[in-house]
Every structure is written in C-alpha cells, then in structure tokens.
C-alpha cells in the first residue's frame, strides 16, 4: 500500500525541516478556519494552491484527493442552502434557497479546500517518520512518540498480513454479501488480525528487551535549520499575515 504518495520529491517543501512545516501547517489551518470574509478565504485557497505548485506535486493526484474529500462538502451544498435561516434567493418548489445558506456552504468549501491544499503541500511532502521525529522535538511525551513510531512501522506489516488473509479467503471463493456468513468471515478475519498483532507486539517487545531497551527512545539524528527553512517560514508567514489583513479589511459575512 503506497500511502506516502507525495513524500518523495526534490522541491523546497520536500527538503524543508519537518518542524518548520508542522508549525506552518498548524498556523495555516488555524488562520484559515478563523477567516470570515470571502476575499480572505479566496486568498487562503490560492495560497494553498501556490504551496502545492511550489511543492511540484502531481496536480492530477492532488485533484483526485480533493475530489474524494469534497463528497462530504457536496452533501453540505445539498442541505445547507435550505436549512439556513435568512433571506430567500430563489424557490425550488416549496423549498426556499437562502443567501446565507449559499454563503455558508461556499465559505466551508473554500476554507476546507484551502487547508487541505496547504496540508498536502506542507505535511504530505514529509514521511510519517520524519513528522513523528519532529513531534519528539516539540516535547510531545515520549510514550506518545513511541506509539506513533511503532504504529506506523507495523501498519505496513499488518496491512500486508491482512491482504494475505484476504487473498486466502478470496481464493476459497468468498464474496462479500449482506449476510451472516460474510459478517462471520470478516469477524474472524479481524479477530485473527488482532491476535496476530498482539502476538507480534509481544515478540517485538521481547526482541527490544534483548537489545537493551529500557523505555528510552533514543533520537540519533537531529534536524538542523537551513537557509531554505527560513525562506519558507518567512514567505508563508508573510502570506498568512496578508490573508489576515485582507480578512480584516473586508466585511465579515
């Protein structure tokens, strides 16, 4: 399973320090969520798009991701315009479409997509390991970091184990349907997966003990800030201030 689809590349966003990128991503999300004006939200969305372009991600892949997420947003577009109280714009039979509802749906779509684009450019360009490593530098409790690290390390192992078992039931002619047989098969599949992972967890712990594990999680390599990190942080935060300014000037909806 290839999850870290965007993590390999040579752009400035790929080579930047993950600590800087995490801070920028959080900043971008917090600023965008708080935006009240249409202009501010459009600026946020274009900023996200600029970041994605700067990261030289495959636009086709990016839009595919956006499409999946926007299914939920589409649901909001179908419901919010007629459930929001406000001034009516048009009638669709007995249903009144309100301007406030349309505004709300638009603002959610803009904000959500802006944050997703920024996250794609800032976070998905790092591997999960380097993000977790950066979290350790932010004084996240060691137990949490270890959990993150092991979960991600063994996610792939368990995923391939799962796919092996799934192939095995498929070979034996299993076809998922809405009946108790399907449910029982899935339940046993999941139960087996749990037992296998628990047993593997015990083995892993014993192996770690053999190698002198005493609860400390050693970090051998450390990040170093380069000039490009300062450029990235400078440009992005300047843009964030620009968004805040635009939002401040323009009226809140």
């Amino acid at each position, binding site marked *: 399973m290839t999850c870290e689809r965007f993590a390999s590349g040579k752009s400035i966003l790929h080579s930047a320090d993950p600590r800087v990128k995490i801070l920028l991503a959080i900043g971008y999300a917090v600023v*965008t969520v708080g935006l009240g004006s249409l202009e501010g939200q459009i600026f946020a969305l274009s900023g996200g798009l600029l970041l994605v372009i700067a990261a030289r991600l495959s636009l086709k892949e990016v839009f595919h991701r956006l499409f999946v997420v926007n299914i939920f947003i589409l649901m909001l577009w179908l419901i919010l315009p007629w459930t929001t109280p406000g001034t009516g714009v048009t009638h669709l039979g007995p249903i009144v479409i309100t301007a406030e509802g349309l505004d709300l749906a638009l603002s959610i779509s803009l904000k959500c997509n802006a944050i997703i684009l920024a996250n*794609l450019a800032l976070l998905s360009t790092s591997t999960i390991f380097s993000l977790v490593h950066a979290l350790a530098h932010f004084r996240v409790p060691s137990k949490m970091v270890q959990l993150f690290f092991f*979960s991600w390390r063994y996610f792939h192992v368990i995923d391939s184990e799962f796919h092996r078992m799934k192939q095995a039931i498929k070979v034996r002619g299993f076809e998922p349907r809405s009946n108790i047989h399907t449910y029982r098969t899935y339940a046993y599949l999941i139960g087996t997966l749990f037992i296998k992972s628990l047993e593997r967890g015990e083995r892993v712990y014993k192996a770690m003990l053999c190698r002198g594990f005493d609860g400390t999680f050693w970090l051998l390599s450390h990040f170093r800030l380069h000039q490009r990190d300062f450029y990235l942080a400078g440009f992005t935060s300047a843009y964030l201030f620009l968004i805040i300014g635009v939002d401040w000037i323009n009226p809140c909806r």
Partner: protein
Amino acid sequence: MHISEGVLAAPVLLAGGAGTVLGLAIGLRRMDVREIPKVALLTAAFFVASLIHVPIGVSSAHLILNGILGILLGWTVFPAIFIGLFFQAVLFQFGGLTTLGANTLNMAVPAVIMGALARPALRSNSGLFAMAMTAIAGAGAIIMSAAMVAGSLALSGESFVAVSKLIFVAHIPIAIAEGVLSVLIISFLLRTKPEVIKGNMHSRTPSLGLVSIIIIPILIVFYSQAHAHKVNLFAWYDGNMILAEGYFSSGNKAMDSTILVLDSGGKEVFHGMTDKKGEFSFKPPGNGEYRLVLEAGMGHRAEALVSVQGMESGTAAPEAGQAGPQTAESPELKGDGHAAEDAHKGTVALTSAELEQILDRKLNPVKEQLLRLAEQRDRVCFRDVVAGLGYIAGLMGLAMYLTQKKQKK
C-alpha cells in the same frame, strides 16, 4: 465519521481539543512502557480494519470498531484513536488537523464508556449476558459517536441541525452491523485467545477522569454559546400594536429576520419578518403575555416579553401592520361605518407619526445606553477567561490528587 476542516465553530474545536488533550494524558499515564508495542500494533490493526468496507443492505460502510477498541484498550483508546485519525488526516486528508481534537473526542469517549460497561461482564462469564453486553457496547459506541458528531455540528450553528440529524440516522444501520460484528469478534477472541480479554490489562474502571473529560468540553461550549447570541430585541405595546426592533450588539439592525410571536401557552400566534430598518409590528389578537422570538440566523436569537392589557378582545384579527391593505379582514366587515373608521384611523396615524418622531428623538439616547449596558454585560472579559482557566486547573488538580491516592493503595 470525520468532520472536515472549516465546518465546526471555534468553541467546539477548542472544547474538543481540550477534552482530547486530557484524555491523551490519562491514556498515556495508564499505559505502561511495556505495553507500548502491543498497543501500537493494535492501533495499526484497527487502522487496517477501519479500511475494510462491509456490505450493509444495498450499500456498504467502512468499519469503525471503537466499541471493541474500548473493550480491549480501556483508556488507551485515546492515543490509539488519535494516532489513527492523525494518519488519516495526513495520508488521505480525511478529517483534518484542526478537527483532530473534536474527532478524537467524539470517537474515544464512547469507546471508553462502552468498554468500561462491557469489560466486567466479559471478565466474569462468557455466556449470553456477556454477549448481550458486547452487542450493546459495539452498537452503543457507534450510536454515541454519531450523537456526539451530530451534537458538535448542531452546536456550530443552527444551519447544521438538519445535516446532523441526517448523519445520526445514517449511522443507525452501521451501529447494528457493528453490534453483530462485535459479538462475533469477541466470541472468536474468547475461544482462541481468552487472555486478551480476561487478562488483567487495564482493570481499573474509568471514573473521575471521564467525568472531567465530558464536563470540561461541555462547559467550554456552553460558556461560549451563552455569549455568541449577541442580538438584542426590544419590544413594546403602544396601545394598538406590538412593536419590536432587533439590533445586533454591533449596532446594526437585524433586517429580514424571522420573528415568531408566541402566546403565554407557547402557541405560535404569528410569524413574520423584520423590515429593512429591523422593525416589526403586529396587532395582538387579545390581552395577555406575548413572547417574541427573533431568529437572525447563524445561531443569533433573542427573545422579549410583552404584556398586552386594556384591549377590547374580539374586534381585532391577527394581521401584520406592515402588510398594508388588510388581507386578513373578511369582506363582510366592510360595512357602513367603514368610512368613518377610516377617517378616524387617518387622524390617529398622523398624530402618532409625529408623536413617534418626538419620542424617537427623546428615547434614542436612552436606548443606545441600554444597548451598551447589555453589551458590556455579555462581553467575555479577560477576568472570565482567567476564572475559567482556574476552574480547569482546580478540577485537574482534584482529579490528579484522587488518582494518586488510588495508586498508592
């Protein structure tokens, strides 16, 4: 069951974040270093299992399994679910960073509660009662999560109420499917490796920590909700009509907003809209107390009470003052005395217009003063924030003291 970025209101996000941080702290404290690989591998297994799509009727849904996660992990579900959601946010852009707290809380609190409910039964026996508890835990965790998701949406604005109802209803078949699956999975585990469930892992029941995790977010949300509705409604009775004006605390008029008039029994008497000046008038059908409710959208809402006395009941039919030509009046009433009545009305209207002007000039400063006072009362002061933080610190201190005591025993 992920809520996307940009949907939830800031107080809901903050409340979710605060609750999740607390839950993570408790979960990590209760997890021994020796358990880390085991918990991590279970987290990974759940993440894999959540990618399975199970057919339900004509459609299919992906598994959530937070009930079973609660049974197996207890308080440690908080870090486990947090990690799963973090991976989903970073890898697939489902959910998001700002909603991570709220999403974690919505899934982990039901898991902890349902796990605590089912575990004692599972430990003591493995008969019908234990299986019934497992089914309740599996289905109940989904129902509770759906209710919490719906609640966090509904608290973010009145527009989301319909969406939240839809989400809740959509999760009912998923809850049934998960209840069935939970029973099958747990009975499989009991047969093949009973020590997973019967072992003494996380034997303590949740108590004070859970209470504080539930109460603190609720406090934060309600505290901010109380201050969010800053729209003011002034209503009075001028001997003939009930007049009302809606203001936002910024001083803007609440125009084109819906106004509901309810009588003392709570029955709707009339509903209409304010005009471009935020004004509204209505001729009451009789004596009594009327409650006016102004809905200015986005959760802005104000109420005012008006009592009407000294009015001859029966002569007046409910009608909107601004409707101009009186549509509610039936044609039979337009009899001989109509011309005289019209003339009478004309003179009254003239003088009342003049009177209104004079009164406005005199009363506007007073009204503004009142508005400013009301606003001051509603504003969230720095003092209030410090007090709130004090409460949180105090509650946390109490929780820590009690858990410490328990550990010493």
